[in-house]
């Protein structure tokens, strides 16, 4: 006597519909999954940028007139050069300090040293951008920490004007961007095979020579990606330049904000914004051509 194994009703005969043994969902569920992003991205990432660009060319007198208005204004032109120049300085500082830090973290073997380095890298992340600027304002103010310390030590008689200067803005921005730079460079630095340095030295290279000829070329993609990311974010800065910068050296963001809220000149603000956007895209695009989209994304996800 053979017992019939009861077949569960849900089990389908082998012929009806092949079950795909893949970890991947089909196209339609996948489309449903990306639907929320598609909506948000279309409406609030793509559309604002498209709208901004269109407005820059069509609002006001249209054509290139808004850009002409930007370039005819001494104040805006100065601010644009100022923004780009200061962002370059910030980027350079972030690459030098951040590169040293990233390399130090990657090489540190003692857990205590590693912990100290990671803590210091992450501290600025844990302060909001407003709080960071506030801290530097407290340090740089005329009767601030730095000045009173210098005066107490007898190094200066008069208080130095540090707050509301380019210097203060660069310090404040570097403080904000340094963690980004470190995190963007860390994957490359920690992925670097330190044996290569030993090999170079066995073959007679000096430590410095090995760093310049072996290490630098191999970590260059990480450095380029970090530089591009830091620069692109830097040129958009708003809070730090307002709180630490002087009225004589405004950042583009301040000019743009004033155009909208004080002069009600939205078309010119749109044109200025498009210029900023173009600079960011060109820098990121160039970096991407040099190091590939992967390295750039790797720099972001750290």
């Amino acid at each position: 006597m053979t017992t019939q194994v009861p077949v569960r009703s849900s089990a389908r005969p082998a012929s009806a519909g092949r079950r795909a043994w893949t970890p991947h969902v089909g196209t339609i569920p996948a489309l449903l999954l990306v639907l929320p992003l598609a909506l948000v991205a279309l409406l609030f990432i793509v559309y604002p940028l498209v709208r901004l660009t269109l407005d820059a060319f069509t609002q006001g007198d249209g054509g290139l007139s808004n850009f002409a208005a930007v370039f005819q204004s001494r104040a805006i032109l100065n601010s644009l050069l100022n923004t780009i120049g200061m962002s370059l300085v910030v980027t350079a500082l972030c690459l030098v300090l951040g590169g040293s830090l990233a390399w130090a973290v990657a090489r540190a073997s003692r857990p205590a040293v590693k912990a100290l380095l990671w803590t210091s890298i992450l501290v600025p992340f844990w302060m909001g951008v407003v709080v960071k600027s506030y801290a530097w304002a407290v340090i740089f103010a005329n009767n601030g920490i730095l000045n009173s310390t210098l005066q107490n030590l007898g190094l200066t008689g008069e208080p130095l004007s540090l707050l509301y200067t380019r210097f203060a803005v660069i310090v404040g921005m570097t403080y904000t961007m340094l963690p980004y730079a470190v995190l963007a460079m860390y994957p490359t630095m920690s992925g670097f095979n330190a044996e290569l340095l030993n090999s170079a030295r066995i073959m007679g290279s000096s430590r410095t020579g090995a760093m310049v000829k072996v290490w630098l070329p191999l970590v260059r993609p990480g450095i380029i990606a970090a530089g591009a990311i830091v620069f692109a974010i830097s040129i958009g800065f708003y809070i730090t330049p307002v709180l630490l910068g002087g009225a004589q050296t405004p950042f583009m963001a301040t000019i743009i904000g004033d155009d909208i809220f004080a002069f009600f000149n939205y078309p010119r603000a749109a044109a200025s914004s498009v210029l900023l956007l173009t600079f960011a895209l060109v820098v990121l695009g160039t970096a991407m051509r040099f190091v590939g989209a992967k390295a750039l994304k790797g720099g972001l996800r750290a």
Partner: protein
Amino acid sequence: MSELMNRPARVIDGASRVLGGLLVTAAVAFLLLPAALVLVLSFGTGNRVQFPPQGWGLDRYTEIFSSGNWGAPTLLSFEIAFYTAVGALAVGLPLVFALKRSLLPGRQFLEGLAFAPIVIPISAYAVGMYAVFSQLDLIGTKHGIVIAHIAHALPMVVIVLSTSLEQIKPELELAAMTMGASRSRAWTGITFRLLAPAVLSAFLFGFISSFDEAVFITFLGGAGLITLPKYIFDSVQYAVDPAITAMATLLMLGVTFLMLLGTALRKDKK
């Protein structure tokens, strides 16, 4: 091997080693100093922020809680940050499943799109948002700010979630499916559970990103919406209110705690 090296090379090596050490030390001091300073000064007294303070005490903290100025912005910030975190998850969570568990063409592009808000210069982005928000009547509305903050938080949330989902082996789902589970059952029973700490961590990162955000609120918040960063921003522009040191310290400690929690949650899973 040092015998192979000539003297100048050794001098250069020593100098570069010292220089490297100095750079790292300087960077660490630079990073820690402002935070430590705010922390220390928050326990000072007197109506000016100075170092060393005139005296020590909890005046700054009692002022925050008694003045009544800080309550409304804080509540608003909490509210907006909560909805932002929920919204960013609602967008980010399905997305990472589509990225890691489907063969949809254009996945790289979609991921890039989600990362875009981090690298678009924020002031240019804010102007574009301003135009769109004016058109859609979202200026000065709470839900408008939440939307802007969702876009702002998205890169971080997607990075946290996709890094974690990458580490959950699809084979686990396949194993469940060979034992008769449907795909959705395999996802809810296995993948979601393994991903839960990352989801919480992503929630915290989304929350913090909104809680700290000050540019969008300035461009899009109108006159009525004042979040905590906006309140501090406005007051620092005109005068340095000593009570801000206490608020800044509380913010720093709160965010540090949440970040550590978020990071610890992510590590647990590995």
